[in-house]
């Protein structure tokens, strides 16, 4: 009475074939989905935004300046100590282009009034993280920016 018996699991030939067909069908579906998704992947052309662009000569950027490089969609920020930072001009809130406000010495987004300091750190939300950056390469006295690599900074706290 207390003995539990597991019912014998009988796999008929028909069942095996059914499972095999279902499996093959599933694989075919997955492959099709894979083809579609790869086909739809973004296509990036050489020389467009996304490649390495030359912003200008090092000497063209005085210390403590912010310069908009429109074809690279970015700002070259030269800090007081002479260092370079390259900041993506796209707001991290909802993607508007953020202008540099020379008098306020801040980036102020026209869309929902996010504000960022000279290095792109959030001073006023709703932006949830600092402006993104690109790697800067200094080569033969030229400032180059790798716009293919977007560096996200993921702090979510305010900087004041």
């Amino acid at each position: 009475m207390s003995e539990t018996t597991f019912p014998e699991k009988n796999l008929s030939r028909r069942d095996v074939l059914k499972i095999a067909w279902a499996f093959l069908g599933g694989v075919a579906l997955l492959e099709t989905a894979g083809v579609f998704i790869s086909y739809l992947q973004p296509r990036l052309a050489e020389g467009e935004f996304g490649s390495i662009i030359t912003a200008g000569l090092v000497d063209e950027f005085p210390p403590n300046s912010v310069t908009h490089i429109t074809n690279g969609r970015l700002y070259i920020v030269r800090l007081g100590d002479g260092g370079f930072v390259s900041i993506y001009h796209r707001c991290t809130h909802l993607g508007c282009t953020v202008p540099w406000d020379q008098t306020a010495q801040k980036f102020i987004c026209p869309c929902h009034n996010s504000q960022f300091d000279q290095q792109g750190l959030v001073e006023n939300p709703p932006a949830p993280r600092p402006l993104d950056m690109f790697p800067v390469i200094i080569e033969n006295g030229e400032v180059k920016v790798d716009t293919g690599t977007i560096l996200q900074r993921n702090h979510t706290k305010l900087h004041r």
Partner: protein
Amino acid sequence: MTEQTPQPDPEPSVLDRMRERLVPDGMPSDDRGRMRMVMDSLILHIHPAKVEVSTLKWTYTWGLGGLAGLLMMILGVTGIILINNYTPSAPQAYLDILELNSNVWFGELIRNLHHWSANLLIVVSVLHLIRVFVTGAYRPPRELNWLIGVAMLLLVIGANFTGYLLPWDQLAYWAITVGTSIISYIPLIGNWLSRLILGGPEVGANTLLNFYSMHISFIPLLIFGLMSYHFWRVRKDGGLTLPKKAESTLDVKPERVTTIPHLVRREFVFAIVWIAIILVFAMLVPAPLEGIANPDMSPNPAKAPWYFMGLQELLLHFHPLFGAIILPGFAILAIFLLPFFDINLASVGVYFRSQRGRSLTLLGIGLALIATPIWILLDEYVLNWNAWLPTWDMLISNGLIPLAVILLPLIFLDEWMHKTFQADTEERVLFIAAFLFIAFIVLTVIGIFFRGPGMSLNWPWAMPVH
């Protein structure tokens, strides 16, 4: 006996055989009969032969489903014509619209018709949804048709959104930029999905092509397929729900009349009147068009399309994960699930369920009209969780805390309805829905009319011109 070969009939001509296939029962002998045959077989594909008299009453459905269908047809026809004068590439798309407006016969009229019908369709679909909701017409057996309806509403919004980008002006570019950035806040797959849809890191040539192909193939195919099914299900579910008066015990005796002419005549007049209204409107009011898209210059303020302004207003008050994903996600989920937990068949067909339902709806509307502006003003000028809790994660200070501030009173209100007014489930659903919907409308109106440069609050008449 000799076998006699059967004499073959005189061979019918090709024309006769064609006619035989087209009209197997033979043509009626008179003109009237012939006309009638064609019309009848067409109409009775969509409609049943007889309909209930009470459902013909104009003040029950307000003809909203029919109007949505009419707008779909206008959109399909004008859309197909527009394809001939439109190139989905930047900057040609914008130039094509200019050309359409100035150099193509009736070009501007066709564009205006498409534009205004599309916008009206959103309003009409939502009103139709409200009609179905407040008459309880989604209850068994009509749950499936409700689900299909919600899917169509989402697709209509999708069609509007993908269409919005096509003119490639500043309005289009920035509205789509703001709208698609919301996607990147979806946890885990957000960034990948947004790149896939945009075809790159930001709105550009690839985005235009992607949106165009969605707009003219995938979305319309789905909508028109679902719409046919929606119509068929109305028949399959036994026709429309029957209108009833609140608290009336006497059963209206069902009385059926023939669809032709009783229903068809009404539909015909209704369609003619609405076509005239839309035509006149499209002749008088041009669809907006601004300067060509310029990725380096966001206009100030940059606003999403009007039907997303409620969401954009929410985004001013919440961390984007809450404002753009969690809250709207829950709202859509709740709308989908409504017919499965509001199932009292007794009040199907009664506007607002009951006398008490009517009062509670009014109460919900009134409370929302008062509470929403107060909350917005408080959040704008007084509450500043970020500054008060500077070391807290913004997900909490700008997400969970304001959410709790809103939800707690709502839960309290619901309890109060239950305890004080003995409201049952269907009346509580009505109350909460009325409150939330009107709150959303208030957010939308404030977003559209009261937000100026830098998204600061302004009176509409005191708006600085930029």
